[in-house]
């Protein structure tokens, strides 16, 4: 750490804007292609299997939902990161903001992943069957909210909100690369505060609709925040991975200080997720009301129990102690391991949320789980890679770019 003292008289180095782009021959330029291949193979095989054997369809749609939620939650985390960056006028994160912008740019493409699920609604949601609703006074009561039309309208509205915010913020950011107009920073900030309100409401009700209503009798007011916590944590894991990958490309821009901050945020959201998860669990476990406690009773019985234990250890306790030291957060390799691990744990978390409504008695693995997850990740990778190559890797003329480059953790 002795390279620290810079003489204030030496001329600062010069960076060429063209060097802040993904080079033409860079291997990441192939991501769209690789992603498309994965998507076609993974999703195509799953769909074909589902078309051929109707008995496999419930499994197909549940697996598909896990995969789609996994990539969508990362993209939503990216949207949140960009919104919070603008509304807090953050300085340090300018050099990694493009990663968030590229992640949120995938949302319109990820909407396509939810289109086939419309045909799977019958297999996913008990409330979508008129005869089941007629026999169940609770579902009858909830019919005003849980019905196909309103559900689809809401889903459409959520994607419209997210895509609108993402595309608008992206285009303003790219415009600033060209013009350098500081007023654009101000405009993005002005958008972000109301954007956060829309984000909070849409993500909450999205989680209620697509995850909580899988078991339409169960309810938990914290559920939206729980989903949000996992999503943002997954995004920070993804951000850490991409930032580590970009370190060579952006050698003079991105350094251990930025990784340290990303690591701290990853750690913070890991703890926040645990806080939400524990709050939900403790309150339901303690009161032990029949209408609520079934959710955990099921997940703490049979072969779901080890999954719950694995989630507690793997999603919280182990990474908590692993990420605690400062050196781990500044070390690309160690941070990378933690990020990959936590992404896997986030997938497990979603699996744990969704699957028990299909496999009531215990965990039952299927190749469709893997195929749909790989396919969804393919769609995400393709869209992310496309967006990555379309614009510079950092916001070239963001007025706070110099602040971000020179930022140091105290």
């Amino acid at each position, binding site marked *: *750490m*002795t390279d*620290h*003292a810079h003489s204030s008289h030496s001329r600062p180095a010069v960076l060429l804007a063209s060097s802040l782009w993904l080079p033409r021959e860079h291997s990441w330029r192939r991501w769209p292609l690789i992603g498309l291949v994965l998507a076609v193979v993974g999703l195509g095989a799953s769909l074909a299997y589902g078309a051929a054997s109707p008995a496999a369809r419930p499994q197909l749609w549940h697996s598909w939902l896990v995969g789609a939620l996994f990539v969508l939650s990362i993209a939503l985390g990216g949207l949140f990161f960009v919104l919070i960056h603008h509304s807090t006028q953050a300085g340090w994160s300018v050099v990694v903001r493009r990663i968030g912008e590229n992640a949120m740019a995938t949302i319109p493409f990820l909407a396509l992943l939810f289109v086939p699920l419309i045909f799977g609604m019958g297999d996913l949601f008990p409330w979508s069957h008129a005869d089941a609703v007629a026999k169940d006074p609770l579902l009858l009561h909830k019919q005003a909210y849980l019905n196909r039309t309103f559900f689809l309208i809401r889903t459409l509205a959520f994607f419209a909100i997210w895509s609108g915010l993402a595309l608008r913020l992206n285009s303003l950011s790219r415009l600033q690369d060209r013009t350098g107009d500081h007023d654009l920073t101000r405009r993005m900030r002005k958008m972000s505060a109301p954007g956060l309100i829309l984000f909070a409401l849409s993500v909450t009700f999205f989680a209620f609709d697509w995850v909580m209503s899988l078991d339409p009798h169960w309810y938990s007011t914290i559920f939206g925040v729980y989903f949000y916590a996992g999503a943002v944590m997954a995004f920070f894991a993804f951000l850490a991975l991409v930032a580590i990958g970009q370190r060579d490309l952006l050698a003079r821009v991105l350094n251990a200080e930025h990784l340290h901050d990303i690591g701290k945020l990853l750690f913070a959201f890991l703890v926040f997720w645990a806080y939400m998860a*524990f709050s939900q669990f*403790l309150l339901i*476990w*303690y009161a*032990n009301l029949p209408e609520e406690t079934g959710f955990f009773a099921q997940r703490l019985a049979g072969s779901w129990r080890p999954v719950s234990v694995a989630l507690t250890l793997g999603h919280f306790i182990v990474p908590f102690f692993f990420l*605690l030291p400062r050196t781990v957060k500044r070390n690309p390799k160690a941070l990378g391991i933690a990020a990959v691990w936590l992404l896997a744990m986030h997938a497990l978390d979603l699996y744990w949320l969704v699957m028990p409504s299909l496999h009531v008695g215990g965990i039952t693995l299927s190749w469709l789980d893997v195929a749909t997850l790989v396919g969804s990740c393919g769609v995400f990778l393709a869209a992310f890679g496309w967006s990555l190559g379309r614009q510079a890797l950092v916001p070239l003329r963001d007025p706070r770019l110099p602040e971000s480059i020179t930022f140091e953790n105290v």
Partner: protein
Amino acid sequence: MALLRPSLPPGESFGVLAEFASPTELYHACEGVRDAGYTRWDAHTPFPVHGLDRAMGIKPSRLPWVVLVMAVGGALAGIGLQGWVSTTAYPLVISGKPFFSWPAFIPVTFELSVLGGALGAVFGMFAMNQLPTLYHPLFSKASFERATDDGFFLSIESWDPKFDSDRTVELLRRLGAKEVELVSS
């Protein structure tokens, strides 16, 4: 009395005290003194100056380890106390819950772990800094009162193997000291 006096070797002279005009000048002076190979020396500033500890070549603090041990100790004490009370010392059936209801023990365990960590951080820091030390030879200098206001000082102790009153004063002058004075023990 240890509370009142610092543990310093015997000797007539404490060393020299130099004043610098600004944090920047003190920063460069610290680099100079560090590079000259002194070991028993210190800088005094009214507020923490970012990067100065590195310019002085101070090793990272080991305080986090003290805190970790104390926090884990607090957690173990918490879960141990609650487990022992609820299963052995005074077992009660409460709302049909098991005697060892671990989810219900997490809040207190967490709180005690934070308490342990905080006590470790504060008293560990005082111990590492050997505080309280109510008297110090530097306090005999009237100018040193400004070390808690707007003065930036550098002190080199006479027990430093490289210390030589003439040459040390000369070095400090060369490094841009505004004022250099000798301090008696």
